[in-house]
């Protein structure tokens, strides 16, 4: 049985990727909101925001990338919810397949779909003047952090995907995640925030992740922020995975 984990996951990954290919609007929709924010903040509000040296689009892009992921995983929850409510989830569970493959197919699809959305957003940013002096290794590091962040949020999205009773309940969970970057260094430096807000902003995961990506793009040394960012992502991933698996085992018990 276990020897089929990989092949079963591959079959189910192929299936979900077909879903995405046939409704590319989900990827476009995922990218539209972050791109709109990018335009709004760079061309409307950005002129009034002081971020030290460098252009505002360079400053803003890392936070926008995280928002892209936060809105992208809502579709993962939605696709899983559709499987559960439509009965095909139970069909898979009653078949002699590696059961974990059913979730992994969706999780890997989420990574692929989010990477495509991220590329779209980066391309728009480049058109708006985003420039990076990062070498291949730094780009690889950025991609690594973004994939880790995507995995963490995706496993979180598995929980409402399995338990939600309505479509509204499925997508609702992602709103706080989309909002989180606003109370961080993603849009403005934290230095100007009042005490408690600043404390929260500086100690929540988004700030360290955003700062790390920003340094990588600028070709600067990353320092401790890099490790803090990776620790946040890995920690979130472990907690989300454990919670998702607990939900899953309750569901199929």
């Amino acid at each position, binding site marked *: *049985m276990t020897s*089929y984990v990989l*092949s*079963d996951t591959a*079959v*189910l990954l192929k*299936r979900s990727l*077909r*879903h995405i290919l*046939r*409704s590319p609007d989900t990827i476009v929709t995922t990218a539209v909101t972050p791109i709109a924010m990018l335009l709004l903040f760079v061309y409307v509000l950005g002129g009034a925001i002081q971020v030290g040296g460098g252009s505002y689009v360079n400053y803003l892009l890392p936070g926008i990338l995280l928002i892209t992921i936060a809105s992208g995983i809502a579709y993962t929850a939605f696709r899983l919810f559709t499987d559960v409510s*439509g*009965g*095909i989830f*139970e*069909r*898979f*569970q*009653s*078949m*002699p*397949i590696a059961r974990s493959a059913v979730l992994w197919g969706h999780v890997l699809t989420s990574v692929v779909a989010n990477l495509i959305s991220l590329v779209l957003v980066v391309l728009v940013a480049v058109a708006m003047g985003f420039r990076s002096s990062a070498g291949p290794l730094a780009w690889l590091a950025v991609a690594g952090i973004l994939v880790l962040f995507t995995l963490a949020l995706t496993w979180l999205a598995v929980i409402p995907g399995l338990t939600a009773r309505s479509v509204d309940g499925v997508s609702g969970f992602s709103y706080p995640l989309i909002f989180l970057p606003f109370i961080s260094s993603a849009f403005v430096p934290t230095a100007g925030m009042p005490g408690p807000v600043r404390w929260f902003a500086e100690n929540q995961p988004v700030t360290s992740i955003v700062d790390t990506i920003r340094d990588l793009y600028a070709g600067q040394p990353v320092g401790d922020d890099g490790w803090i960012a990776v620790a946040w992502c890995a920690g979130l991933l472990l907690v989300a995975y454990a919670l998702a698996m607990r939900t899953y085992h309750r569901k*199929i*018990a």
Partner: protein
Amino acid sequence: MTTTPAIEIDGLTKSYGDQVVLAGVDLSVPTGTIVALLGSNGAGKTTAVRILSTLLKADGGTATVNGYDVATQPAKVRESISLTGQFAAVDEILTGRENLVLVAELRHLRAAGRIADDLLARFDLTDAAARRVATYSGGMRRRLDIAMSLIGDPPVLFLDEPTTGLDPQSRIEVWRTVRELAGRGTTVLLTTQYLDEAEQLADRIAILHQGRIIADGALAELKRLLPPAKVEYVERQPTLEEVFLTIVGHAGAGAGK
């Protein structure tokens, strides 16, 4: 081959909180027969099928399918069964053919494409093979659903209310399919709330009421539970179903459009 029953249920219980759904169900389904589990809505039919197909754990009692215990050998049970749930469990975004290929690949069968094409032909779906399932009618979906369940030739098939929500023609098509399956030696446990469906299809009928099997036997045996038949003369009107089928053209001829 010995005469081990394909399904053997002994004292099965299941409750949700205070609500007792199964209060000690005993049932034996001989290999190669069609047994109908008859009961009204909420009688516990689906719960029983979910336990037998390893989707739900029983609180007490034992159940074996194809000789394997559902609680301790669930993987072996899953290799022996196919489940067709109450609602057609098909992938709407994929085409009919892709749905079949998907299941064949998950069952690790070679020549998934050929298996899919054979089933499409057998279930009159060849013309619709390349269309997305979202465009299918209810009857076509159900046929595809059952076709997906047959991949890999599992010896035991669970059909949970297979004709609920279907039009009369599709219903007769499903019945024909089930009979054909039993003819090939597949054991079928089907649940239904339609008396005529049980009468039409089943070798044995088990009536599930308030969590227990209150009657179990062949139709003739069940009829013996009532006072003996007496002869009365009644003018026989055609049923609406007969009228419907006559007007729209007979369904048995295939071509489910």
